[in-house]
Structures are given as C-alpha cells and as structure tokens.
C-alpha cells in the first residue's frame, strides 16, 4: 500500500483512540481532508524542486508504535545537554517518557501537547494558537490530522523561564520502519523569555520518518531562542516545519545545526505582525555520503521598522546535496525594513552539490535588503597564510572549515550548547585542531 493510502486508512484507526467530539478533532478532520486532496509534495512543486521525497516514502512505515519502550538514561545521556540544569520533555517512539523527563507547571508550563489538547484549562490557549500559525500545506495538514502528542510550552506574561527547555524525540528501532509526527506549540507571553533545544534521535539504523510541526507565538517584547540539533542516523529522515509569529518589539531566533540524517528538510517561516521586530535564522550544515539537507526559509515583513537576519553556512563532502531556498517578502506597508541574508557554501568534493536560491520580493521602497551567496573552495590566501605558519595543507584546510562553520555560533546564547556544537563541528570535520575546545 502506498504511504498516502496507509495514512488515510490509519486515520480511522486513530479516531477510535481519541475523543472525536471536540473542536480540536474538527480541525484534524479538516486537515485530513486537505491532505487527501493534496498528497505528498513532489518535485513538480516549485518549493520541492531540489528535494525528492520519493525514496523515503516507499518504506513501509508503522504509523502507531506498539508500546512505550523503556530506555535507560545512561544509554541516551549523551544526547542531552546534561551539564546544565534544564527542563526536559522526552518522547520515545512518539510516546511521552515520564521517567526521562522533567516537566513543570510552576510559573511556566513545559509539558505535553496531549494535556493541552484535552484539558479544559488549556482550552483558551489551544483555541487561540493551535494550528493558527502553520500554513495549510499538505505536510502540515498531515501532521495536524494526527496531532496528539508533542511539547507544549506556555510562558506567561513577564516571566523568564528559569532554565532552558530540552525536547528530545528518540526512536528505538523496535519497528523496522516508523513514522512520527510530533506536534509542538510554544506560546510566549508579553515580555516573557524562553530558550528551547530540540533534537530528534534514532537509536538504531532502522528507517524513521519524522514529520514535525512546531508553532511558536511570541507576544510583544517576548524573546525566544530555539536551537535544533539534527545529527541523526543514516536512515533517519526529518521534515521539520517550524513557524514563528511575532508581535511588536519581540526578538526570536532559530538556529539549525544539520550534521546528519538521510534527508532533512527544514521549512522555517517567520511572520512579523508588529513593529520593531527582530528575527534571526542561522544554520550550519556539514554533511557527507549521500546525505541531503534542504533549508527552505521565509521571512514575511508585514509591518514597518523590522529586521531580519539570515546566515546559513554549509560544507558538503562526497555526494551530499544541499539546498538553500531563502525568501524575503517585504510588503508595501513594511517601510524601513532591514533584511539581511547570506548563504555561504564550501564544496569539499567535486561530486557534492549545492542549490542556492535567494528570493527577494520587495514591495516597499524605503528598505535596506541585502543578500549574498557564495559557493566555493577555501580561500587560497588563507591557506597560504596558515601554511606559512607551519600548518600542513590537510590541517589548514580542516582549521579553515572549522572556522567557517564555527563563526555562526557566536549568537548561541547557551554557553554549554555552544561548546557542544563546537565539538560536534570539530568531530564532523575530523579535525585535530591542536587545542582543546
């Protein structure tokens, strides 16, 4: 059976497990209809020109994992940022793991989507924000149709989350192939702050397809920093759909570190719905073999006096493929917009590919927008400089690549995370740098 048909029939089974007499379920049913009509995107869609889902859709995925599988903390500790105090929300094969998690309802909510979708006290928040930010694309609709579990984070007005929140999605490989559809909602009130780290990690080489949707709402003057670590096994694929709606004077950033996985597609969109908003997206991609990473971004400048900053860097080895499709849309009313975009790539192997497509659509006349894209090898002058100091070509090349990627990290606000990603970069590049990180 084709995956699409399997999903459609699974939806009936899904409906037997949940409360169908709710407003949320009406949204799910609508979404399912939408997915039935549109199906999975193909390369005929302009936004999917360089990324084909064909090879990952042919697996026979289980839609519902059999049961919660206990895993020991010691076996997965390395995937936590464990040297800092943090709230953690852990899912194993899509099911909440209470023994690995540390949730809270004290001052802030860092808890479960399953509670938020069913409990009366969260009803107003769900009504206001759930499925209100994510556009109705076919993949979002598919996720919405099956939305049941994920992280729910709610930071009330004037509250600073006292520690970062980690969301970890493990897959055990108990199923030969598994499809997961986590659904996260992050609501950050006026003048509230939060930092979130998210990771999808399979524990075996069995196939996993994750189609995740995260909606983030940042009220006036809110600050949200979201970090995504994507360093998964060779048969794990991720379609990450993240949408950020910002109100006036809010400041949101999303950093995406893509170091591994079979196919990774990041749909990341920011909607600026007030003045003096700052939006930042940064990414480092370092891949090899036949891995594929696609960043598809949008910043929608709707109101005047806002800024956006995009900085994506990629290093591609072997036959790996990178895609950067970054759109900046500046509406007529969005005067005095400052929008910056840069995408720099290094192709280490002559078989590696990068497709870089910046798109600027500007309807306002008083704006400062810039974009730049480079694809190249390492700078010869820099190589000579390093070699003249006694650093051999191989080490010089590694050091320059490390520096190239590492440079994006200065805006990471959690020092332990910065250090961790630093080390991941050095490991990825297989560099002996001659100094401790």
């Amino acid at each position, binding site marked *: 059976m084709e995956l699409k048909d399997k999903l459609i029939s699974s939806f009936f089974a899904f409906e037997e497990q949940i409360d169908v007499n709710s407003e949320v379920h009406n949204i799910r049913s609508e979404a399912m209809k939408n997915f039935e009509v549109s199906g999975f995107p193909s390369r005929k869609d302009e936004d999917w020109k360089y990324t084909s889902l064909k090879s990952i859709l042919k697996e026979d995925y289980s839609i519902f994992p059999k049961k919660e599988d206990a895993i020991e903390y010691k076996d997965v500790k390395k995937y936590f940022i464990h040297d800092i105090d943090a709230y953690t929300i852990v899912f194993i094969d899509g099911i909440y793991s209470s023994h690995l998690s540390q949730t809270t309802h004290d001052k802030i909510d860092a808890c479960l989507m399953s509670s938020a979708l069913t409990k009366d006290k969260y009803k107003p928040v769900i009504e206001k924000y759930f499925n209100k930010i994510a556009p109705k694309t076919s993949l979002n609709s598919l996720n919405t149709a099956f939305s049941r579990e994920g992280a729910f984070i709610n930071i009330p007005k004037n509250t600073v989350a006292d520690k970062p929140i980690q969301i970890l999605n493990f897959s055990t490989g108990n199923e030969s192939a598994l499809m997961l559809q986590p659904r996260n909602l992050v609501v950050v009130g006026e003048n509230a702050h939060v930092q979130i780290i998210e990771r999808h990690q399979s524990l075996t080489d069995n196939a996993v397809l994750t189609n995740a949707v995260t909606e983030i709402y940042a009220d006036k003057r809110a600050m949200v920093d979201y970090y995504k670590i994507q360093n998964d096994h060779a048969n794990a694929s991720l379609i990450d759909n993240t949408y950020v709606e910002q109100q006036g004077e809010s400041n949101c950033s999303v950093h995406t570190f893509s170091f591994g996985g079979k196919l990774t597609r990041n749909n990341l969109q920011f909607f600026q719905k007030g003045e003096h908003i700052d939006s930042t997206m940064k990414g480092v991609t370092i891949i090899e073999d036949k891995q594929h990473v696609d960043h598809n971004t949008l910043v929608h400048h709707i109101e005047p006096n806002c800024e956006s900053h995009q900085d994506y860097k990629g290093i591609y080895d072997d036959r790996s493929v990178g895609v950067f499709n970054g759109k900046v849309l500046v509406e007529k009313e969005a005067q005095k917009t400052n929008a910056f975009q840069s995408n720099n790539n290094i192709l280490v192997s002559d078989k590696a590919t990068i497709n870089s497509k910046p798109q600027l659509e500007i309807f306002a006349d008083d704006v400062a927008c810039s974009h730049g894209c480079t694809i190249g090898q390492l700078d010869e002058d820099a190589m000579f400089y390093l070699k003249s100091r*006694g650093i*051999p070509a191989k080490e010089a090349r590694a050091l320059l690549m490390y520096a190239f990627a590492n440079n994006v990290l200065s805006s990471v606000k959690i020092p332990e995370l910065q250090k961790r990603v630093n080390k991941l970069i050095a490991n990825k590049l297989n560099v002996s740098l001659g*100094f401790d990180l």
Partner: protein
Amino acid sequence: MLKIKNLHASVEDKEILKGINLEINAGEVHAIMGPNGSGKSTLASVIAGKEEYEQTEGEIIFENEEISELEADERAHKGLFLSFQYPVEIPGVSVTNFMKTAINETRKAQGLEDMPAKDMLKKIREKSELLDMDRKFLSRSLNEGFSGGEKKRNEIFQMAMLEPKLSILDETDSGLDIDALKIVSNGVNKLRTKDNAVLVITHYQRLLDYIVPDYVHVLLNGKIVKSGGKELAYKLEEQGYDWIKEEMKAL
C-alpha cells in the same frame, strides 16, 4: 643562512623576478627597498613558498638545503617566517588557538611532542608582554576587525612565538603610527640574536631608523640593481629612485 641564486619567478606567465642574487648570513639584517611594482612582495612570497608564483629558474638555498620544491609549511618548519603585508582574517579561530596549532604542528614535524599547556601559556604571556599586547586581544578571532597596527603587531607576536631563523618582514611599517612602529621594531630588535637573521622589505626608510640594516638592496624591475650600507636608504629617501634609473641607463 639564505642564498638566492639567479632567481626568476612568474605569475600567470608574466615574469616578475628576473634574476635575483642575494646572500644573508646569521646575525645580519638586510633591507630590500624599491618602488611599487618592482617585485618586493613577490620576492617575499616566493621565498616563503606561495604556490601561485612559479619559480622558473634559479635556486633558493636555506641552511644548506635547496628548498624550491618544498611546501610553505615545510619551509616554516625549517625556520622561515614571513610577516604578511596583508594578514588574512580568520573569524572563528582565536589568536591563542591559532598559535597552539602552529607551534604544535611545527613540533610534530620536528618529531617533538605537543608543547605542555603550561609552557604554552607561559610563552604566550611572555611574548605578548614583549609586544605590549592586551590579554583580551589573544582571545579574539585571528585578525578579524583588527586595526592595521594590531594586525602587524600580531604578526610580530607570531614571529616571537615561532622563533624562526630567518624572518622576512613584508611592509611591516605600513599602516603603523609612530607608537606602534616603535613597539613593533622594539619587538623585532629584542628577538635578534647572532643565530638568526631578518630581511626587511619596505617602501620607506622610516622603519630602518628603528630596525637598522647592515645591508640595503635596491630592487628595480625584478632585479637587485644596487647594494650598499644603511646610508643607501637615506639617499633613496632624499633623492628617490630616479638617480639609480639614470645610472642603469648609463651602463
């Protein structure tokens, strides 16, 4: 220490060096002066082993070994150092970490273990004090956002750390105000011993007031056309290069 014989070099098939002869012994300071485009920086880059320059003829003998075929890093391991006219910015690597890598790679090539962290720190402290460098400076990304003077001071700091036998200073005075010039020259002078040597490449005589040369050579159109003592530098400063060109024509 360094013997250059009939050196010819081209870049993109254009001959820039047209038969250079030069000999530098341990303990000496040599200066090469010449107008823009005479080939001064090319000479420095060719000695250091920059690949874009093709050495078409001649020999470069350093410490009794022909080094023309060696890579830039191998030349550095033998004790050659080039202070760049335009040091390259490397965002993402701090000055300290860069120095650790450079020193330990050099030690590895010489069959030595990594320098113990404690010794490394001590050395970094000593040499940065010699050049009156702020400690904060050492944790900044290499050359990124450095002023012209900071870049040059950082070059001489690297020279102090690597302790080369022959240091080539390519236009080290350009971009320096008088105070920075004094600090940099003072650093270079303190690093001089009877066993090492310095080759100063400069456009102006100004630097030579501080780093006093034993020999001055004039480079014109890819050839050394005149050599003399430090008084030659003063004459060039006062009278320019035209009189030498006239002399050449007369020959």
